[in-house]
């Protein structure tokens, strides 16, 4: 095993300079994003129920990537991790666009009536269960909560990136200390906000149904796909000639291990939720899976078992897969695809009880939300170095070995 020097190589390219192939990417992403949004609304206005459901899937998907990245940053400080410093800035850049989701959330507010049954006053008037929940599930409080979630996430994502970038100038250890101090309360605030956001935006689509595991389920998908997304970005940046001699097989090995481990975590959470509901067989709980069985959604469920668990579990297990850029890239992209299927499977059966019905707006909303989010993330990457160059633990990360 070769040993890696603990200093940044003199010829390492740490900036996306003007003229580099990645310099144009934000514009490309924004064009795709704006076109996607325009297309979604142009095509979707005829069927607003479909439009808003498509939008919600795209929003929950890309938001989970940003939130997962934010959580990645938080735990690196909480655990005082050394190995991950070379990839942390990429995660910071992927988390930093979180505030834009407050804007992308506006269509959800516009479509509340189409999305959420509990907003129908006439339905609530005849439904004792919904009346009981109305102190929680009502338009005003729903919006207030959304404002709180976005405030918490935006503050954390923006603050962490700012602190980290500021440290690039001075190398002052006080930045690291402050970020470490903030990470523990940050994780607590993050946990509560992501849980209730998942309850509000996804679980309340079927307002009669409930599961204490729901928040953990959304979190498990978010953190898994964030590991995959960070891996994909690091690999592509390196493919474009950046970060050479900075990120190496040791770091990829660790990222691959995390993708592997959290594939199992996602499966553990999803299985536990399904299994306990199936075993107890209580009608008010089984309704969730009853909608998803006996029609084409059942195939999607099986696809998740195989594609979201068995395939990445077996594929990501060998050491060589995780240390080979090509195979790791494949595995990470696959996980990102399956995470979309997982979110789709959670949301769409509420609209299409009869079975899977793809709509053009699904694809357009994906491009729209994804284009705007990734465009902003790519813009962040252009601003400043791609590595926290003066982080006190950078030497440890550069010299890091899997032993």
């Amino acid at each position, binding site marked *: 095993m070769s040993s890696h020097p*603990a200093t940044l190589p003199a010829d390492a390219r740490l900036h996306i300079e003007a003229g580099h192939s990645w310099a144009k990417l934000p514009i490309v992403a924004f064009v795709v994003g704006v076109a996607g949004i325009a297309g979604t609304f142009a095509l979707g206005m005829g069927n607003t129920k479909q439009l808003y459901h498509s939008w919600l899937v795209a929003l929950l998907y890309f938001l989970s990537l940003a939130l997962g990245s934010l959580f990645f940053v938080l735990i690196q400080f909480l*655990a*005082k*991790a*050394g*190995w991950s410093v070379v990839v942390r800035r990429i995660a910071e850049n992927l988390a930093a666009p979180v505030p834009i989701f407050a804007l992308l959330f506006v269509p959800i507010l516009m479509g509340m009536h189409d999305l959420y049954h509990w907003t129908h006053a006439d339905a609530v008037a005849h439904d*004792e*269960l919904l009346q*009981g*929940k109305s102190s*929680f599930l009502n338009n005003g409080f729903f919006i207030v909560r959304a404002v709180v979630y976005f405030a918490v996430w935006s503050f954390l994502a923006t603050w962490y990136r700012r602190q980290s970038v500021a440290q690039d100038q001075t190398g002052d*250890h006080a930045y*690291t*200390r402050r970020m470490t101090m903030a990470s*523990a309360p940050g994780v*607590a605030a993050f*946990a*509560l906000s992501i*849980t209730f956001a998942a*309850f509000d935006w996804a679980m309340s689509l079927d307002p*009669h149904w*409930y*599961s*204490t*595991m*729901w*928040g*953990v389920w959304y979190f498990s998908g978010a953190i898994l796909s964030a590991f995959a997304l960070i891996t994909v970005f690091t690999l592509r940046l390196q493919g474009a000639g950046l970060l050479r001699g900075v990120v190496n097989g040791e770091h990829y090995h660790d990222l691959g291990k995390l993708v592997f481990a959290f594939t*199992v975590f996602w499966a*553990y*959470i999803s299985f*536990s*939720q399904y299994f*306990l*509901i199936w*075993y*107890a067989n*209580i009608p*008010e709980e089984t309704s969730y899976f009853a909608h998803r069985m006996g029609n084409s959604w059942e195939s999607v469920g099986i696809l998740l078992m195989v594609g979201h668990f068995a395939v990445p579990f077996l594929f990501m297990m060998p050491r060589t897969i995780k240390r080979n850029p090509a195979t790791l890239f494949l595995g990470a992209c696959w996980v990102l695809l399956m995470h979309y299927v997982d979110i789709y499977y959670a949301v769409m059966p509420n609209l299409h009880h009869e079975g899977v019905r793809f709509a053009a707006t699904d694809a357009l909303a994906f491009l729209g939300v994804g284009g705007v989010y990734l465009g902003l993330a790519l813009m962040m990457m252009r601003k400043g170095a791609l590595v926290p160059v003066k982080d*006190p*633990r950078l*030497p*440890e990360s550069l*010299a890091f070995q899997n032993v």
Partner: protein
Amino acid sequence: MATTVYTEADQLEERLDQRAPLVLGGNDFHSVTELVARPIDRPGNMWWPAFLVSLTLLGVYGVAVAYLVWEGVGIWGLNNPVDWGWAIVNFVFWVGIGHAGTLISAILFLFRQKWRTGINRAAEAMTLFAVACALSFPTIHVGRVWLLYWVFPIPNQMAAWPNFRSPLLWDVFAVSIYGTVSLLFWYTGLIPDLATMRDRAKGALARKLYGFFALGWRGSQRHWQNYESAYLILAGVSTPLVLSVHTIVSFDFAVSQIPGWHTTIFPPYFVAGAIFSGFGMVLTLLIPSRIIFGLKDLITVRHIENMAKICLLTGTMVGYAYAMEFFIAWYSGNPYESFAFFNRAFGPYSWAYWTMISCNVISPQFFWFKKLRTNPLFVFIISIFINIGMWFERFVIAVTSLATDFLPSSWDYYSPTIWDVASFIGSFGLFFTLFTLFVRFVPMVAIAEVKTVMPQADPHHHPAAASKHGATVAARGGAH
């Protein structure tokens, strides 16, 4: 040759450009061996009293079990709705404690937490003893203990099989596999240290016995290579096992339809609680042990602080689960579910519920403050609260939901008898007897592993040149 002397202040200094030292004092490889072997060479005058007290408690357990076998489970406080009392509570309590050891040795190993080397041996031993205590309760609670073999799917002429759909049967497999793998893991880690004990043994019998168990270890390159691979594989295998055991235990409750038992968050919530209680017990055992056996240089305040942080994290996760249960009980609109939780907090068992909340959720919050979590006495006191709280958690779960079930006409209040108390207290006798024997005969710190995280283990280490602030990151080990 001068050795750098690290102090507690160096360790708690929190430098960001290098990792804190894990072994304090001016220790070198030889002195670490001597330090760990000393309690075995000269047990001191505390050992016999501790052993005798433990043995007496074990005797109490023996009497309680003997009377139980003679008379039947009627001697316990079980009544009609509460047909699952302290036996299941004690079982889950002990199994939970049995999680810390393998978590430390497997999961912290995979996460490269080098500070685990100071505490993993004792924690793993504690795990095995806790699992032994845990297994004793399902064994005795069947009443006719001579028919215990019925829990195993053994082909028999009556064609009577255990119910494969029952999580209680899965428990048999889950706990016994976990116990077996934990034992293998512990023993694998012990082999180099047993060889050390063999080589320095003065008596012929000791040399024979240590030699027998050391399996001919000579510390050759090939031995170490096999050892390292075995250790990594066992860590990989143990990691899902740590999670699976308490997941299956949570299924014992959660697959039912009983309000307060059936909720989807149970598996990860139980696992978090198990780790919480396990670390609580590790702290309870090691804070006095490090003083009694003079191991303060190896089991340092930094180790205690890290464990306190894990307690804060897992205690708060348990608090999150309590909150989710409570919120969803209300949100579900299910009157039985809401009643179960309202009844827990304000019903006849509210004293137990609030004991649980205070001990499990509130008491670890003190660990937000560095001053408190680096004060061993304070951490010790909180660890006792954690032990109490986690026992009460299982009591609250098992008993409150049963005592007030769907039919108000069958409600009854559960009170333990003297025999319930005797078997619970007595099980501590089993636990501490095994633990005192362990510290008497087995190196309670992993000698070989601790040496790997000392500066001297670095091939580039120059004793003369090494100064506190000049040492490289790699050379100073890594306390996170």
